């Protein structure tokens, strides 16, 4: 694959197997700053494994991942952890908020882990919660809010550190279509205005319609539809 100029995150010829099962079989990927790319494909096609490799959570067996000019596959565990904390944000389908903390404490958590004071972290967190229209939930705990509200809190937490890439794995999978679309609208609006790239794994076309383009993963191989059509 020729790497498109100006790419922020790229992957080439990624291969990954779990025992006898091949998850990735030569997958390719690239994303620009501020771009929203949907990763689509049937269940078990390898799309979540691709996301985990791109985010430095899982190491591929072979292939190359480059983030902002740095080779991710050559980094140590500690370096990849630091990269995830400082440059990436994450939104998953379930159970990502800490139940013992209030919503504002949850959103502020990544800043606290990076050394910000409580006051400073919660002030920034509240600004993001306002943007995601959940600031009135600041004193509630995750168990006291609806699924859609909880997911907006999770999006605020993913964006609070001003990451350059947000990885969202089926972020609306547990929501009804009205709430799911509202989450997508708020997530993509906020990301685009902050020039944050979003890697969006989804099997739902209505969710993928919030992206700028899509790649399709099938049998561990990816296909960039923009370069096909």
């Amino acid at each position, binding site marked *: 694959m020729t790497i498109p100029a100006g790419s922020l995150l790229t992957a080439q010829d990624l291969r990954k197997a779990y025992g006898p099962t091949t998850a990735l079989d030569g997958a390719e990927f690239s994303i620009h700053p501020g771009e929203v790319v949907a990763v689509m494909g*049937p269940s078990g096609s390898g799309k979540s494994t691709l996301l985990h490799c791109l985010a430095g959570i899982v190491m591929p067996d072979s292939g190359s991942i480059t983030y902002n000019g740095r080779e991710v596959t050559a980094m140590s565990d500690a370096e990849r952890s630091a990269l995830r904390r400082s440059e990436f944000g994450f939104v998953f389908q379930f159970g990502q908020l800490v139940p013992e903390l209030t919503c504002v404490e949850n959103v502020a958590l990544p800043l606290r882990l990076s050394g910000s004071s409580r006051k400073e972290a919660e002030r920034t967190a509240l600004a993001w919660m306002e943007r995601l229209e959940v600031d009135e939930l600041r004193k509630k705990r995750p168990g006291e809010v609806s699924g859609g509200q909880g997911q907006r809190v999770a999006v605020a937490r993913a964006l609070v550190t001003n990451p350059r890439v947000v990885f969202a794995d089926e972020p609306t999978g547990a929501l009804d279509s009205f709430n799911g679309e509202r989450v997508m609208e708020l997530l993509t609006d906020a990301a685009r205005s902050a020039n944050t790239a979003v890697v969006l794994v989804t099997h739902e*076309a*209505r969710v993928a319609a919030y992206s700028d383009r899509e790649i*399709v993963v*099938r049998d561990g191989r990816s*296909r960039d*539809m923009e370069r096909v*059509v």
Partner: protein
Amino acid sequence: MSIGHTLLGLLESGPRHGYDLKRAFDEKFGHDRPLHYGQVYSTMSRLLKHGLVEVDGIEAGGGPERKRYAITEAGITDVGRWLATPEKPEPYLQSTLYTKVVLALLTHRDAGDILDTQRSEHLRSMRILTDRKRKGDLADQLICDHALFHLEADLRWLELTAARLDKLREAVTR
């Protein structure tokens, strides 16, 4: 959409000129396809002939005469009947896409390519509708949602067909 019934329905709130009818139609229903004046006047002539509307008055001005139309009792009954009749669901059996997929398999072309390209085209349309929905009012949102759900149904068919291509190949080339 039945333009005749829609114009009749718009007349239920009171008599209107042809121009007012066109304006009301375009505002409420003609987002993508505004009515031509010719359509309005030919439709009103037909409704007049069938006794579903009557001329309520004629204004003479500097230009052509302007007829004001009013709905009749027969017209009100006709609108009520139309509203109460369910629309026939379109099953789209033997769609062009199905034909293309089968032909690709029969001629040993890559049917997966056809499905991938079509998915991308559908998503392109869905992106345009999603963007319009985000920027539009509630009426726009509902119109776009209707189109989006139909496109989504097509996409589900595409995914299911992609997952069954091997079996379909066996069946059609047997």
